[in-house]
């Protein structure tokens, strides 16, 4: 099958791959590049486990064609910690016991990051809305909401 060249930055580093036309960003990230932080829970855009940030927008990588990401800047949960220092969201998810089986966690953190990047001081309702496309089947939503609110608070403290 015809291969398509595609270049983008992933968590700040340049990537160049030949991908099958029609390959999803999820499969390219996981199988070709080896970033397995986005998870394949449904491959049909219903669970949110594969969420990544493409040019600042939250995207479902299972419904995003890799070839449409030419020149894009992609962020995944694997790239959040800088120099071994956890991102405030990662710290908050740990402190608030916002992980159970852990399968939804990278997608949840991406959805939360996309929210805080555009709205650093969200209301509880805005957090609920932001993670509405992400399923936590362990049903640990309350600690997740608390973690996002707590990360927003710690961000505003460090910014002050």
């Amino acid at each position: 099958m015809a291969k398509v060249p595609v270049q983008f930055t992933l968590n700040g580093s340049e990537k160049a791959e030949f991908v099958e036309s029609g390959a999803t960003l999820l499969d390219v990230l996981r199988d070709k590049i080896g970033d397995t932080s986005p998870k394949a829970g449904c491959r049909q855009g219903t669970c949110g486990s594969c969420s990544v940030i493409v040019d600042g927008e939250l995207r479902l990588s299972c419904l995003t064609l890799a070839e449409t990401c030419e020149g894009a800047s992609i962020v995944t949960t694997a790239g959040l910690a800088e120099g071994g220092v956890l991102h405030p969201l990662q710290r908050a998810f740990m402190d608030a016991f916002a992980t159970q089986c852990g399968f939804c966690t990278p997608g949840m953190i991406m959805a939360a990051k996309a929210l805080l990047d555009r709205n650093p001081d969200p209301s509880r309702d805005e957090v609920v809305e932001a993670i509405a496309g992400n399923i936590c089947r362990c049903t640990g939503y309350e600690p997740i909401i608390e973690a996002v609110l707590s990360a927003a608070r710690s961000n505003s403290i460090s910014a002050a």
Partner: protein
Amino acid sequence: MELRKTYFADERKDDLHEIGQPRPRSDALGHVTGKTAFFADRSFPGMLHLKMVRSPHHHARIRSIDTSAAQKHPGVVRILTAKDVPHNLYTILILIQVGPEDEHVLAEDKVRWKGEAVVAVLAETERAAQEAAAKVEVDYEVLDPVLSIDAALAPGAPIVNEHHGRNYYLYDSGEARKVRFGDVEAGFAAADHILEQSYASAPIEHAPTETTGCIVVPEGSGRFTCYTNTQAMFFTLDNTSIILQMPGQQLHMVGGTVGGGFGGKVDVIVEPIAILGAKLTGRPVSFVYSREEEMQISSPRAAEKLVIKDGVMKDGRIVARHVKAYIDAGAYSRHSPYGAQKSAAHFPGPYTIPNVWVDSHCVYTNRTPSSAMRGFGVTIGDFALEVQMDKLARLIGMDPLEFRFVNAYRDGDMKAHRQPTEGAALVECMQEAARAANWPIDERFMAMSSRTREGL
């Protein structure tokens, strides 16, 4: 968090200094950094993909299987049918002598539920495997299906599973797991009121976010490493050993990280056929359920039908409880004979009733085999029992919580299945619940204890 240390303080040697203190989860760092390795996060060069051809019928005889067109599909490496499986007939609990073996790894003569595995296709890509699976031709003679507990037990019903020869599991106690305690008919005769109610539930799917699957790698040592998200590592190891007639030392199961299970990953389903595929091709094999398979193929919580008849006195004492329970196993046993047994032992719930009669049946139907899920055999029974308790309280005009105090089991009481009650603490839990919910109850119930008979 408030920690009440007043109850059972004399039983404690420590001061519970860990309880109430946050301790980080050992796996949280991996989860928040995306580094936790779920089974599907591994890939291996030359890995093949396995797709299953499944029955489109609830109940049918297989006349013939033609894999010739699928075999020629580009990318197909190997096709597996029943004759490739060394010991094709199995049942999970044979490990603890709960037989008979009643389920084929790949269907032979019949399919007994819509979705049953018939033919496995191994190909270079997932897409090739899927396309080739669509080219496998199976000629079915469709049979009448049995789709409910009532239909299964009706006279003249088609037999779902010939390995049982009847549409229910035959225990050593007969057609049901039985509990007989006291004289239930004498209890009803003495009762002021009798209430009989039926309760029914539908199957419930666990729907874990990570679908069921495994990846198998043939190693140079002749062993096979199986990365799996099973919740039952040793069931899987031992059953695979039986199915593939391979010594356990050749099977290296690697697991422990499960993206949501809730009991739904306790059956032995993907590993034996994936290991067989790896063995016959000499290549790594990935077998991962699609979301549709997870919802349709993985075993749900059983549907149940419960008929509860209680005799109660005006003062609140339940003097007789008669329960008929029917657990829908679907087409195969899996863990359901055990679930139905657990159901029998669980009635009459956390209450001390002098006269109890329980029959719990494990019934076969042409539905998706049911299996473990969070307290299976117990949870639906508890739902029915507690609804029944509320109805009984209303019937005699008593507060529903006080009604439960009157009947609560306490230490030293003999349960209906002949286990003495120890460490019950139900009374104390209900006292705390009454306080927390600000639900006023009579002082004599607040003075009760699980340890003594004083007061009531």
